[in-house]
Every structure is written in C-alpha cells, then in structure tokens.
C-alpha cells in the first residue's frame, strides 16, 4: 500500500516534527508526539490552508471539466424527466453524486417515489463511506468542522486525486475541499447547461467523456499498486466486484469489492 511507503518516510521525519511540533505548520495537529503506538504509520503533519485548497482546485479543475460531460448528460436526463432548471441545479448543488442523481431522475415520476429514490441513492452512495474511511489517517488530525465540511465534497474523481496527494505525503488537508469545490462548480454549472440545451447534445460518449472516470482510475491503480502485497487484496476486490456487478445493479460492487478486500486483509493479519 502506498500509505505504508509514506509511513516509512514519516518515521524519519517524526524526530524533527516532535522536537518542535512542526516548524511551519498552522495546523491543528493534535496528538503529535506519537501518543498511540500505531502513530508511526501516519503522516505527522496535516495542514489545512490556502496552499492545499488551491492545489486541490487547480489539480482537479481539468478533471472536473471532464466530469462536466456527465453533468451535461445529467442535465439532459433531468430535463427529460420533467425537472425544472432550478430543481436540477439544486439537486446537483446539494447532492453532488453523479451516478445516484442519474438513477434518481430515472426513477422520477409523478407522484415522486421518495422512499424508493432515497433508498436507491443511499445504496449507490454507500461506497463513499469507504472512501471517507480511507481518509482517516489524515483527517483524524483536523477539526470536526473541517472534516465534515470537506466530506460533503467527496466525489469519485476528487477523492481519487486527494488520496494520491495525501499518500504522497503532502499533508495538505484542504486538498479535498479545494478539489471538491472545483467539482462542485463544474457539476452545478454543467447541470444547468444540460437542462438548457436539452436534447441538443445527444451523446456524451461521442466525445469520449464517458471514459474520463475509467482513465483516471486506471492511472490511479497504477499509482496505488504496491507490488506483491497488493496482489491478494486487489484480486479479492476485483473478483468480488465482478461477481457482485453480475448479480446486482447499481454500485453495490464497489462496496462489496472494497469490503471483501479489507476483510481478507484483516483476517490475514500481519
């Protein structure tokens, strides 16, 4: 795992960090000084400031531009489902979860089947719990307000970019928020565009925009690969995900694959 590699680095850094609680860190780095025995695997400094926010925004903006292709697609679907411009953009602004929104407008009817939609949305988005959990080594050092504010902006793409940034040891706690704001801006704006243009844009696949998520995740997988120690959990995740995707629609396969790999790793122990 990449975080294990990062852990090796942080052991060396810890000496200087504990000596003077971080030279140039405005962070609220609680628990410094390795209170817990497992502290050594964690990054020792996590900051939450403008540099991280800006880095997240700048890094994610081009990706968010790609995601805007989905946003337009969602807007078009919402338009066809009978949502108004205000309703569709409001949904994008407060939900910010593409797949679940598309499923929701597919289920949209008159009267609105609220319970069904909420359950479907919950199931589709349950994978975000795992993504949020993966952020814990860094986010445990931040204040609850910052953590729970940032988590609102979790989406697949910016979570991926954030994990990449944090596992590299940058310690930029605001990266998720910055990248999330980029996602949010493009997502809401492109939703409005989608509703407005209606059926003018017929097929985002023609421009390859439907492939943006796959491309990002392939690149990320290459980055996260940590040699033979990744082999068993990844194989378990892949097998479980493929099987689950065959059996259930929606995004259950993400939850099942990630969960199975984690369980196998726990059972295997160290």
């Amino acid at each position, binding site marked *: 795992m990449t975080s294990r590699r990062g852990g090796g680095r942080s052991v060396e850094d810890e000496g200087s960090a504990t000596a003077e609680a971080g030279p140039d860190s405005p962070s609220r780095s609680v628990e410094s000084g390795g209170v817990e025995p497992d502290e050594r695997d964690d990054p020792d400094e996590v900051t939450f400031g403008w540099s991280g926010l800006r880095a997240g925004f700048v890094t994610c903006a081009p990706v968010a531009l790609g995601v805007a292709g989905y946003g337009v697609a969602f807007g078009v679907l919402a338009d066809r489902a009978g949502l108004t411009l205000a309703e569709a953009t409001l949904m994008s602004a407060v939900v910010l979860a593409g797949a679940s929104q598309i499923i929701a407008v597919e289920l949209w009817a008159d009267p609105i089947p609220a319970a069904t939609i909420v359950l479907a949305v919950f199931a589709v*988005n349950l994978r975000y719990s*795992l993504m949020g959990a993966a952020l814990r080594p860094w986010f445990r050092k931040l204040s609850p307000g910052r953590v729970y504010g940032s988590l609102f902006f979790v989406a697949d793409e910016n979570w991926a*970019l954030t994990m990449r940034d944090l596992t590299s040891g940058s310690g930029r706690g605001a990266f998720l928020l910055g990248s999330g704001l980029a996602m949010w801006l493009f997502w809401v704006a492109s939703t409005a565009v989608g509703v407005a243009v209606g059926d003018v844009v017929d097929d985002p696949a023609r421009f390859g*925009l439907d492939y943006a998520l796959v491309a990002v995740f392939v690149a990320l997988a290459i980055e996260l690969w940590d040699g033979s120690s990744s082999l068993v959990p990844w194989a378990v995740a892949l097998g479980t995900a493929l099987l689950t995707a065959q059996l259930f629609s929606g995004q259950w396969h993400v939850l099942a*694959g990630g969960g199975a790999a*984690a369980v196998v790793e726990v059972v*295997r*122990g160290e």
Partner: protein
Amino acid sequence: MAVATYLTKVGGLWLLSRVEVGDRVRAGLEVLPGAIVVAVLGPRLAEGGPPEWAAAAVVAVVARRTGNILLSLAVGVGAVVAFRAALPSVE
C-alpha cells in the same frame, strides 16, 4: 436525497473516529484505496469492449511512465475515441 448522500459520505469516517482500531483493522483499511479503485474499474472495463480495454492499456502505460493523472486522462479520452472508431465494440 441530499441527506442520504451526506450520511454516506461522513458515515465511514465518523464511525472510525469512535471505535478503537487495532493493527489488523488498520491493515484492512490500508488496502481500501486500491481495492475501491479496482472494484470501481473491474465491472466498468468488463462491460466495455476492445476499444475500452485498449484505451485502458494506453492509460496504464502513460500513467506508469509519467505518473501524471491529467495527461493520462487526456490520453485515455483521446484513445477511446480513436479506438471506438477503429475497433469493433462488443454489444
């Protein structure tokens, strides 16, 4: 809908900050990022066809050589458009 989504986004981390985490659970959590990435990718690639697989291979090479996610994204999107035009897709 917004509430359900937000709950899923904060739920995992909230739970973790309230229970003690041992070494084994830690190890389990450490494999999560890679495992989630694989779990997202696997079925997506499986439902694609030769154009998507070929583009994924191109992305993998670019990502390995450069480590640049944005470049990988751009190359991947370009490659899939080209391969879709050139290769038959499996329906």
